[in-house]
């Protein structure tokens, strides 16, 4: 259970579309605040606030260079959230695949019952 401790903060951070877009941009490589501002039509302070949320959630880390403070994506929390979601799908997809097989059997049974 404790492995899901970070999920709240992770998902809260991911709940915002701008922050998701920032992450998508950072998944291509490091970027400075001003670089991140360009595609979003948003003020630098607004972007900075989003970066702060992402940083606090551990989803990104930021360089200490005052001139060019680069943000970079951090994989850990994302992987954890992904694992949670994957668990959900890991349960259903193999089950449904098994159901496919069972339904084929049931169809055959139904056909042979009709013939009798």
């Amino acid at each position, binding site marked *: *259970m404790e492995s*899901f401790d970070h*999920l*709240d903060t992770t*998902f*809260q951070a*991911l*709940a915002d579309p701008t922050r*998701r877009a920032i*992450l*998508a941009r950072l998944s291509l490589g490091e970027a400075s605040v001003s670089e991140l501002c360009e595609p979003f039509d948003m003020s630098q302070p607004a972007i900075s606030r989003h970066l702060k949320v992402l940083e606090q959630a551990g989803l990104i880390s930021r360089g200490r260079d005052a001139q060019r403070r680069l943000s970079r994506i951090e994989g850990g929390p*994302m992987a954890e*959230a*992904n694992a*949670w*979601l*994957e668990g*959900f*799908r*890991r*349960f*259903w*997809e*193999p*089950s*449904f695949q*098994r*159901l*496919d*097989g*069972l*339904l*084929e059997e*049931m*169809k055959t049974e*139904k056909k042979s019952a009709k013939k009798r």
Partner: protein
Amino acid sequence: MQVGKLTQDRLGSKQLVITRVFNAPRDLVVQAHTQPAYVRRWLLGPPGWEMPTCEMDLRVGGRYRWEWSNAERKMTMGLGGEYLELDLPRFMRVTQRFDDAWDGQQSEIFTEFLEQGAQTILKMTITYESEAILEKVMTTPMANGMEMGYERLESLLKQMEGEAA
């Protein structure tokens, strides 16, 4: 043979929709979902799990109880709930709560069986108690990423099947 695969979509602030197409008539898909003898043969999750308990008192106000175990990993898992609404073969509505839900919450599941020619579309709408819990369950970019991963896995599995045959 193209068998539709699972899709997972978010609906509004508290709902998650899972759809899956099956190449079988609706009455069989409904039977497979409502008769314990069938349910315990497929509702097993990943390999290694069995379903020793599958009780389903299929009537409004009746309860169901599912328990799984994995001998190899010495793990058990259980959940249960109540039938709130039954209008088979069209739909059913149930509550659901996991024994060890880390969120401690109950969800409501509305399962529809839709006919599409010789196929059946299974549509499960899961409603969580709050928006916060759904936020935990789903975010768009990750779902997209996962979908790509699963597509790759699927083609890999097909390849492996072909090699084994």
